[in-house]
């Protein structure tokens, strides 16, 4: 993944939304999902193209947790530490992931491969402990299984 998104691609996304200022959130979401984070230069381009002031873009980009203003890895790992997953051993799953990736929750590794985040209940407690990678749910995780799953992404 390149560190910057080229202007052409940004313009395409903006064009898809007819350059409507009211589509700001949609545009940002699309960039976020494609690029995994929102670099300052990209935001400036969006600001110019949509004619939305930077202050407003910053307000929105910092308000919603879906957006990240720092680089994110290409694989996003979410480990549930909600009550049900916690009692079923989420901590051991988390420890294993931390060991293997070398990052802690809220961090991204230097190769921009993984980002790690804890969440509080993914809504499938019966499957606990639950780990989610790029939206795919892995249930009933043991530390050994966690390691196996992660290896697939290496």
């Amino acid at each position, binding site marked *: 993944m390149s560190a910057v998104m080229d202007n052409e691609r940004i313009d395409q996304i903006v064009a898809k939304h007819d350059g409507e200022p009211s589509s700001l959130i949609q545009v940002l979401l699309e960039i976020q999902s494609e690029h995994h984070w929102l670099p300052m230069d990209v935001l400036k381009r969006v600001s110019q193209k949509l004619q939305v002031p*930077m*202050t407003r873009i*910053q*307000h929105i980009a*910092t*308000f919603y947790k879906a957006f990240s203003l720092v680089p994110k890895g290409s694989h996003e790992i979410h480990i549930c530490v909600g009550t049900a997953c916690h009692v079923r051993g989420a901590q051991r799953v988390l420890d294993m992931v931390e060991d293997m990736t070398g990052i802690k929750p809220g961090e991204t590794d230097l190769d921009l491969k993984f980002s790690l985040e804890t969440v509080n209940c993914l809504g499938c407690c019966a499957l606990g402990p639950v780990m989610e990678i790029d939206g795919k749910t892995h249930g009933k995780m043991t530390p050994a299984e966690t390691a196996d799953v992660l290896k697939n992404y290496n």
Partner: protein
Amino acid sequence: MSEILLEIDGKEVKATAGMTILEAAQSVGISIPTLCHHEKLEPFGGCRLCTVEVEVRGRTRLVVSCVYPVEDGLVVRTRTEKVERIRKTILELLLAHAPDSFVLQDLAREYGADRDRYEKEASFCIHCGLCVRYCAEVKKKHAVGFIDRGSKKEICFIPEIAAEECWDCKECFPLCPTEALQAAFVLTLALTSPPPVADKTGS
């Protein structure tokens, strides 16, 4: 424009459609306390300090006077016990964030608000949005905006814009009911750009 008749604190008041209760009250010299209101700006309704009681067809309820439009036959009471209690609590909560604000202290005296009722959590900015909205709506420069949310929300100057526009303007400074704005401004410039004096000697 159609004329509207309403009653505020027992006084007959003539207003025109589209006016807010606050404007109607001010037009006859009844003062309602405000923090986030400014005549030049769009109604915002953020601080809730201007809350008043209104009675429509026998039912009373609380409304925010700086955004609530006048209606025919509306009965407004700006200083009931309930209203005063609400204002007192709002002030106490805000004072936990900006204990040294003179604007808040004056209002606190008026409403008997206790500065120390809530544990101090000095963040200085009380999120009235005056600076942000003034810069956007009146000056159209968008040099200052909000970032983050909830209790972590704070104002933030965009350094590139601030360095160009703010030195000769600073019109938002006196609007701020706390000292948060000036502090943020000084910090932004200190971190990002040389003072203009240096610029001039350089050129």
